[in-house]
């Protein structure tokens, strides 16, 4: 029988260390909604989402209450919309975005992901129309999230689209300049995007997935930090073992919640995403884990090694705790959503370049980074290209969610609110990459033997 100490340990994790299940995300395929008539298409999309997800929020809350563990977000991911709306011409996409937003509000989820296109090798007309519509779609909707996959280890990087996305990001920043350029916080550029990611803004329901699926994202940086407090000064073996055991326990909760949600909703269980996802709350921070490991601030020399170790041991511990692991699975390092990272930027410990190095060893990439609003589109494309190259060469998922905040400069702070947090504006390298970005075309896939 369970002992009182074990009960206390679990409840301390929940109450003091902010253990929660970060998201239950229902993946919904929209392939059976296809229609060349935009009215019929949007009606079918709305009906399919609201019918299948009508109990998602209620069920999530019920499970949370019964187990006594908060389930913070309930969300939906759908088939990449570039595929769904391809028959409706360019004007149809924005209508679909509005429909997704309405459906999300109807069922009460806070985000719906999948306003997406997969263009690693090139764009179809539908892909191009969708990408062209992103600034408008994200600025007039509230809950729709968008992503574009521009590269993969298999096919290289589509630099034409990378070039365009620099302008796309600038445009959506401008369109939402009165709301801290918030549209950019709902848009991710990927290399090697995964099809079963439950986390926003990059979630979409891959075309290799079944009709409906439940994916769950766990969290718990606070629990890892608390566990490491007990082994202060111990060697790396002890640190790794502690992280592994903690990740195992966290993931078991996620697995339990996922199975229960799957059973109650009558929707098959897909995967658990083993990510350590921070929030702006104190005690729920990846940077605090670095502090506990012995780094004065995130970004100090040793940070990349610390992150590599953390990321690997979260996976090692988590994999055995779940029957199916997928998604992004690793530690997230969003700047605005982690007060320790924000502090590190404020004291000058963490630069964009160091963040880029850190993304080589963790999921996912440059995430929720605020930069000056006058940064050029080409420079943003250059930052994206660098991050995509890291993913392509290292066979990993990388992403860029960057926000050029119109009207703000280095030294200013921008407030996004809620889970998206707040961020100091980070300085960007001033030297130009314009001629490089203007070349256009594709970067071919890398060779994967002769590794050195």
């Amino acid at each position, binding site marked *: *029988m*369970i002992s*009182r100490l*074990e*009960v*206390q*340990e*679990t*409840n301390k994790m929940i109450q003091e260390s902010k253990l929660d299940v970060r998201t239950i995300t229902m993946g919904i395929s929209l392939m059976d909604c296809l229609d060349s008539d935009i009215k019929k298409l949007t009606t079918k999309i709305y009906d399919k989402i609201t019918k299948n997800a009508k109990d998602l929020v209620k069920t999530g809350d*019920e499970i949370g*209450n*019964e*187990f*006594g*563990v908060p389930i913070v977000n309930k969300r939906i991911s759908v088939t990449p919309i570039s595929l769904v709306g391809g028959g409706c011409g360019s004007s149809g996409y924005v209508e679909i975005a509005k429909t997704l937003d309405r459906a999300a509000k109807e069922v009460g989820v806070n985000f719906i992901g999948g306003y997406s296109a997969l263009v690693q090798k090139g764009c179809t007309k539908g892909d191009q129309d969708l990408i062209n519509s992103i600034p408008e779609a994200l600025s007039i909707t509230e809950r729709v999230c968008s992503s574009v996959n521009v590269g993969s280890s298999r096919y290289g990087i589509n630099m034409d689209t990378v070039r365009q996305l620099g302008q796309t990001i600038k445009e959506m920043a401008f369109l939402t300049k009165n709301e801290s350029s918030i549209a950019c916080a709902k848009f991710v550029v990927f290399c090697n995007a995964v099809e079963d990611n439950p986390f926003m803004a990059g979630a979409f329901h891959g075309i290799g997935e079944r009709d409906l699926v439940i994916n769950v994202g766990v969290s718990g940086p606070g629990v890892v930090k608390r566990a490491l407090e007990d082994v202060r000064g111990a060697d790396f073996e002890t640190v790794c073992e502690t992280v592994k055991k903690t990740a195992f*326990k966290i993931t*078991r*909760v996620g*697995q*339990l919640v996922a199975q229960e949600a799957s059973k109650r909703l009558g929707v098959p269980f897909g995967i658990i995403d083993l990510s350590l996802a921070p929030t702006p709350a104190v005690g729920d921070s990846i940077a605090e884990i670095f502090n506990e490991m012995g780094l004065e601030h995130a970004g100090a020399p040793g940070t990349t090694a610390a992150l590599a170790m953390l990321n690997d041991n979260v996976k090692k511990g988590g994999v055995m705790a779940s029957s199916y692991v997928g998604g992004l699975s690793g530690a997230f390092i969003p700047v605005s959503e982690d007060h320790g990272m924000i502090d590190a930027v404020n004291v000058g410990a963490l630069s964009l370049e160091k963040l880029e190095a850190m993304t080589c060893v963790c999921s996912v990439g440059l995430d929720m980074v605020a930069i000056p609003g006058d940064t050029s589109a080409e420079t943003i494309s250059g930052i994206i290209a660098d991050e995509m190259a890291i993913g392509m060469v290292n066979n990993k998922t990388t992403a860029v969610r960057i926000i050029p905040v119109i009207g703000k400069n280095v030294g200013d702070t921008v407030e996004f609110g809620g889970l998206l947090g707040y961020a100091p504006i980070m300085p960007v390298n001033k030297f130009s990459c314009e001629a490089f970005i203007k070349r256009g075309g594709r970067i071919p896939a890398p060779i994967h033997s002769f590794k050195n």
Partner: protein
Amino acid sequence: MKGIITVVGKDQVGIIAKVCTYLAEEKINILDISQTIVSGWFNMMMVVDLSNCGNKFEDVVVGLNKLGEEIGVDIRLQREDIFNNMHRI
């Protein structure tokens, strides 16, 4: 269905009596109780069986929370599975 009830708060007369009365009214059977007092702080764990309880699990959670507020202690009811899953392979 089994649940775990934890009660934490400043010690006073009648905590167990009040919790047990509530459980009896809800037809919830107590399988195990362990309790200690450390520096005046009351700390109890109960394993209970809710198979014969007519109300929904969630409603009992809310009922116990309310009772806790009345007494001035923190009462939580959680399904046993979360502890088994976390601490047993």
